[in-house]
């Protein structure tokens, strides 16, 4: 269940048209990467899919039901591009931050039960951060922090996980570890993953499909996983070199 479908979605910030006639379908347990140059509308597209933004025209459907009609959206989880708008010196422990993922589901006035805390620890175990459960959040590295936020989005047991550039500012090793975690979630728990990224070569052999955005449209030519440099050049609008020497083979403009 929980197939996502976008039908002729258009979106504009005030007068600035950002998405034009976007239609797509994502099936359960797919692992989809969204790529495209800066400003091409990737984050906007994700925000439309999770319901933070409403399309100007067109529909977002989950199993055929319009998202606007769905009140309980706890099956969706979203790790935004800037997932830490908090101040780094905030005195919260890692386990407190992860437990926040359960608050809305738990409901107002209710306290977390022992079982809820078990789920918090399970989510931390999945991202390999259990040893840090009593650490202050401000003491973590960027990569560790990102894993904590992924744990927070996992703890409510979503069916679909949206991530917007989860590896920005993370070193090659942590990045690999993170992708391995996502792959495991996808394969073993059947969680649908939709991820925006620029690390094309780091993900091609992990994802089931790539969606290419350019100037607010989906480029139908590059749905395949085995993209060539030529096809990418078309998406990005400039020649793209596969930076093999670079630790993660990101798309570079040179």
């Amino acid at each position, binding site marked *: 269940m929980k197939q996502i479908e976008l039908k002729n979605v258009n979106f504009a910030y005030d007068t600035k048209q950002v998405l034009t006639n976007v239609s797509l379908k994502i099936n359960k347990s797919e692992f989809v990467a969204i790529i495209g140059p800066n400003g091409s509308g990737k984050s906007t597209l994700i925000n439309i899919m999770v319901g933070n933004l409403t399309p100007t025209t067109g529909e977002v459907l989950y199993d055929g039901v319009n998202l606007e009609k769905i009140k309980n959206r706890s099956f969706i989880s979203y790790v935004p591009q800037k997932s830490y708008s908090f101040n780094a010196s905030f*005195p*919260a422990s890692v386990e*407190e*931050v992860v437990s*926040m993922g359960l*608050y809305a589901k738990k409901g*107002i*006035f209710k*306290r977390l039960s022992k079982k809820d805390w078990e789920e918090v620890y399970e989510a931390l175990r999945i991202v390999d951060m259990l040893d840090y459960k009593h650490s202050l959040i401000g003491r973590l590295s960027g990569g560790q922090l990102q894993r904590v936020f992924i744990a927070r989005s996992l703890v409510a047991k979503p069916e679909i996980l949206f991530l917007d550039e989860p590896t920005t500012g993370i070193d090659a090793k942590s990045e690999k570890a993170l992708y391995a975690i996502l792959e495991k979630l996808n394969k073993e728990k059947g969680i649908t993953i939709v991820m925006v990224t620029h690390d094309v070569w780091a993900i091609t052999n992990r994802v089931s499909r790539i969606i290419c955005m350019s100037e607010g449209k989906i480029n139908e030519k590059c749905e395949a996983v085995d993209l060539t440099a030529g096809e990418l050049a078309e998406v990005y609008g400039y020649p793209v070199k596969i930076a093999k020497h670079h630790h993660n083979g990101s798309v570079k403009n040179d």
Partner: protein
Amino acid sequence: MIDIFSYEFMRRAFIAGSIISIIAPLTGSFLVLRRLSQIGDTLSHVALAGVAAGILLGINPTLGSIIVVLLASFGIERLRKTYFRYSEISIAIVMSAGMAIAIILLSLSRGGAANIMNYLFGSIVSVTNTDVLLISTLGIVVVASIMLLYKELLYITFDEEAAKISGIPVSYINFFFTILVALTVALAMRIVGALLVSALMVIPAAASLRIAKSFKQTVFYAILFSFISVFSGIFLSFYLNLSPGGSIVLVSLLIMGLVSLKKR
């Protein structure tokens, strides 16, 4: 030494003081972390208008300040929506309005000026039974509300945007929290004084931040420090005949200094 508890008014001061020492840092911890510490100050100035109105109309000034401060918290909320991006404007407006009204009311009531000093600088001898009753009842309301909304308040304080996205009714809770802060200010200023209320909300939380390893600990230490400050402050004020508000705040600053010496 005189037995401090043999005095009726000292017993009242200690009961009121212990409740105040809990609610001030409890709401204060959230305020400090949301960078809203000025709200305490604003509301305490407004509360003075309520005290002045109480004196003029012959009703209990603490009750007067509670009513006025609640009205002001609605006002701040409205203004905050109007001046969306400039929330400090709404704070400045409400603060000036409060002070202006307080001064006008005071000049109307003869002999009120002496009475209002108790509220400006805090007092332990003039705490009445009605004050104790109001402080206990509403103090319990504040503590219970914060315990019930603890997890929502924590999430909003940590990351308001994420809390909203996750489905927490952020604007309702924010509004309700402003009411709790208003109550805290009106109750606490009876002993600490309007000028120093926000100090008792802010300083223990600031000290606690230096050593806490989680949010729960932050709240816990803030209350502990505030409790110590209020009790020793009342003792000092009694034996040395000093202002209670000043003594309490000086002790809390001393604690903050000591805590700062410790490395986290």
